[in-house]
């Protein structure tokens, strides 16, 4: 599986013109953890393991001095997660959801809808975080599939699962 962050807006047109450049944050978050494009990330989706090659346009890490570190992590995780959801099953972003819906994004494909909850960590145990995110998205009442994804940038590792 290839996750090309620089193609994010091509695959998800709704992200065009977004003031937060998610793909750039994804690259910055990966470079901050010492990675260079392309990097092979581990994938654990409901216990099924695989790998994904993440690639991005190299970023000037000096901007990290003026960006909120947590936002880079969260926005970077969204870039990787949305790219993963698209590569895995063709999900395309429809829109962002308000917090009261208990998911970050609503995505669609030819087969239906998906409520996606995303989180990122610089380091730490992503599986414990995934359990939290799965509990959160389980509260989403929309008639849609539900998926939680956590991106751990240090390894890097993508962990995903449904409630």
């Amino acid at each position, binding site marked *: 599986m290839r996750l090309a962050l620089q193609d994010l807006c091509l695959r998800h047109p*709704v992200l065009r013109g977004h003031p937060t450049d998610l793909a750039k944050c994804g690259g910055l978050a990966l470079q901050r953890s010492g990675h260079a494009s392309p990097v092979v990330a581990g994938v654990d989706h409901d216990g099924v393991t695989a790998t994904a090659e993440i690639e991005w346009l190299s970023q000037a890490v000096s901007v990290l001095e003026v960006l909120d570190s947590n936002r880079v992590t969260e926005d970077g995780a969204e870039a990787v997660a949305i790219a993963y959801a698209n590569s895995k099953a063709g999900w395309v972003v429809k*829109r*962002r*959801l308000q917090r009261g*819906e208990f998911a970050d994004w609503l995505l669609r494909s030819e087969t239906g809808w998906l409520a996606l909850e995303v989180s990122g960590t610089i380091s730490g145990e992503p599986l414990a975080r995934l359990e939290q995110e799965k509990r959160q998205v389980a509260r989403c009442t*929309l*008639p849609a599939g539900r998926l939680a994804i956590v991106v751990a940038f240090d390894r890097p590792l993508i962990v995903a699962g449904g409630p």
Partner: protein
Amino acid sequence: MTETHSIAFSEDELDALVSIAIRRAEILDDIQSPAASEAWQEVMLYEERLAMITPPAEIAGGVARVGAVRAALAAGRRMEAVRLASRYLAEEPLPPERRAAIERAFQEDRDRLAGRFPALARSGRLAELDEWRAIASRNPRVFPLAA
């Protein structure tokens, strides 16, 4: 909605706009910025516009309708939220799950206000906040009666 907001956007354009606006409003909320209320009003306008062009029975339409009510509440415009909720709940095809989500939004708003104004909540006077807000919105001065 006023004439100044009557530019015709497509659903895809509104999806992009509301996504940007939600992100901004939530960030402003997180840092407790006074600009958050205005940002939520913008979200409300986009959600309301989406609700106008999407059927209530479809997932996008249901999300927009609940989103408009939630954004109005987050903007502190409870009367607007009541007006929108009344309109959307009158739409027969709106799914029960979305109806429950609208009710939940009001309950969460009441809980939030009760946490912020415990004395008013204890004395059953939370409804007075709506009257005060209505007066304040008509009189932007700090002391309207003394003006």
